[in-house]
């Protein structure tokens, strides 16, 4: 085979391949253009935890330690304390509240056992998945990071409605 034939053959192969590529350009894209576009998350997605408050803004957590006991990766640390103030002025809904509530996201495996264990519905999984940090120590989130009143909604995701079909992986394209 001469060198000329070889060049022609290879050029034809490249053109064939490029034609497939080019043919896809005008078609509809189903890759999410994160972070230019917000991601749509499933309603039961397990992201960073939320510590909830009641209608008066008091923390629901009573520091019963059940989440810490249920945690298989031992990432929850709580210090309980007594709050003798009258009910309206308290930090929490009860006399007992969590003075310290830390979750170490370096250890958390997002299994959801803590949520299941919680007798007061005080902790749930939120949707925030943007947990990357520059320092390992920053993976430890305190009550200030976890309280629902303190967390900020990231513009990078939205949560799907329960009847909304966002499972694009199985969509015909």
């Amino acid at each position, binding site marked *: 085979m001469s060198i000329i034939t070889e060049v022609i053959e290879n050029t034809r192969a490249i053109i064939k391949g490029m034609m497939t590529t080019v043919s896809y350009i005008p078609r509809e894209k189903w890759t999410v253009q994160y972070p230019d576009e917000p991601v749509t998350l499933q309603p039961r997605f397990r992201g960073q935890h939320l510590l909830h408050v009641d209608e008066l803004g008091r923390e629901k957590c009573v520091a*019963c330690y059940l989440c810490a006991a249920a945690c298989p990766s031992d990432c929850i640390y709580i*210090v*309980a*304390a*007594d709050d*003798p103030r009258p009910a309206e002025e308290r930090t929490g809904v009860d*006399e007992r509240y969590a003075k310290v509530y830390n979750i170490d996201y370096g250890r958390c495996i997002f299994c959801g056992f803590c949520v299941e264990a919680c007798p*007061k519905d005080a902790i749930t999984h939120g949707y925030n998945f943007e947990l990357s940090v520059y320092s390992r120590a920053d993976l430890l989130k305190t009550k200030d990071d976890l309280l629902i009143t303190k967390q900020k909604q990231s513009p990078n995701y939205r949560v799907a409605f329960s009847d909304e079909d966002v499972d694009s992986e199985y969509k015909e394209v």
Partner: protein
Amino acid sequence: MAELIKVIINGQDFQVEKGARLIDACRENGYSIASFCYYADLALQASCRMCLVRIEKMPKLQTSCTITCTDGMVVTTESEEIEKARRGMVEFLLANHPLDCPVCDRGGECELQEMVFDWGDLEERFTERKNYAPEKFLSPVVANDSQRCILCKRCTRVCDEWMGEDAIEAGGRGAHTVIGTYGGWLNCSQCGNCIEVCPTGTLLDATYRHQTRPWELSRTTSTCSFCSDGCQLSVGSRRGEVMRVVARDRYVNGHNGEFLCIKGRFAHPFVNHEERLRTPLVRYKKGGRLVPTTWEEAVRFAAQKLQEVKDAHGGSAIGVVGSPRLTNESNWALLRFARDVLGTDKYTASEAFSLAPFFENLSAPLATHKDIRHAKTIVLIGGEPEELQPLTGKQVRQAVRNGGAKLVIFNSVPIRLKEQAAQFVHIRPGSEDAVVLALASPGDAEVAASKLGVEADEIGKASQIISETAGDVVLMFGGELSAEAQSVVAQLPAAFGEKEGRRFLLHPLPLFNNSVGVHDLGLMNGALNPLEILDAAGSEVRALYVAGGFLPAHLEGREGALSRLDFLAVQELFLTETAEAADVIFPAASFAETDGTFTNSDGLVQRVRQSIPPVHQSKPDWAITSQLASALGTDLGFQMSSSNIFLDIAHGVPAYEGLRYPLLKDESKPVQVKHALAGRRDVTAQLAELRRALESLDENAEKITETPPVGHELFKLGVLTSKVPQFHLLAAGNPEPESVLVSPLYQITLDPGLRREAAAGD
């Protein structure tokens, strides 16, 4: 061996002891029977109805906790009928229970929780409103949530039978029955045993309230560091902090059962108190400031100063003072330091009174607390066990109430225990020695009686009770006795002579956790006692090395003694009166941070185990002594291990021969040291001395007629107890706060005027 009878449980034959309780027989043979209200050694209650069993030929289900086994009894413990009954009972128990486990401090170790897991239903069928009652405080140390109560009445029985106080009682009727106090505020000895025995979260420890969870705590079995009873307790700690102290059966099984007093249970916060010494402190110049420094520097400075004194005045110019608060190991290290490193005979321990004459003439074994409980006659000369040795007080009370023992009390103060006494001989203050004389030589009884201010036949009657006893006679004496009287007491069994079936047991009532230990080691046999050492300060004694502090009673009237010294080294937990005068202070580790042993008043050697790492820079006392010895050029050979020191003790002290740490591992089988028993000794010299002392007694002295208030010794603020805020409230008379719904600590400002002066050590 008691007679055996046959009982058929679930179709199987078992041999049980005659008179055994059915519930115990079933449990011992592997059939678990649920129960709340049954508590061994307390009066029967049968109110929870959980232990129901079917007994053949009896019409209905029977409560096994009230049935005594009889020969040929046929029992069924597991059947559909019984399960139905138990499930029904649990449903009723929960009818008014709030099920607020997430906030309840008992959650995780609650007997009701466990019972509901076994016998409860998933759904509650009652739709009626539950009785509501807010959570409240009964005292600075007891919190109460009456709606969680299942009315097992363990607390009221414990309060009555163990403590003899009846401070807590059930009031109201039917579904509205609640556990409460007289007047809504607890004015008792605050022992907290009601908290311990409560199977639910009704009575709770107010100092541990809402702190953590039982499963979060690491538990260490240890020995109490307050009085000489040596109660076994379980220290719950979390992340290097002591959170609570309990004696619950499921964690620890010592000779005290579940009993603890206020100090053992609630006085632990001194361990992590912020005033603990953090670093070694050195005062380079007399009159200068104490400067924080490193361990190396402090040890170097202390060694240099001790060497200077030794070179200038000889080793015997240096005194070494141990403490009956420290472990045997630490005191042994000090003794070795004094003997081997300094070569001085001026060693002692800061003990309130020496037991040396007693042990020298000891003619009968020491009574353990179990012996006291089963004794037939108990003679108490002086002392006030219900305040100073609460477990002994409880055992005496139970021996009388549940065991039918006869209690004879000779005391100048009408102490509370006299309620249980068969005979209370009210003597004049300071005349305890005369009682000993009268008992030992009946010829002197008449003269003594007139000096004591009692009827002549009262002593005769007491002697008669002792002579007629069939069983154990326990002779107890307090710290009021003189050295001569102690020798005579130790020889009293000989004075009464042998009798078939009667056994004499002796029981001293020293004040501190290791009072017997410091005596056994020989630390009390030094040339000078603590008072003489202080008096010789600046003359014979140029330098002192003190572990723990002198008692306030020692320093009273001798305030300048410590400043007359050329050099004073102190190892302490806090900046006490002794430490403030020191040139070098080493921060020492408390009982929760060291390994070692205490010897209690029974002669039981019990382990102290490290539950948290030493706080700040503190070190165990023996480690400091050993380091100081190395700096002075002598290796004491301890290899930084307390078990090595104990081995050294076992080799050096005859009473401890053969003892090793592994032998002391099981707290339920404590080991008694083998104190040498002296035979019959001639005590005529001591008796003569007592007679001489009798002469000088004032015949017209006023008797003390007032019973001292509850807690006058227990709540006293000492170095350790003053670190617990609750003790300040109690010492100030336990004032009732405005609202019982909030902890009194948050309501009552602790103003220094309220704080009672701490007179003696705690």
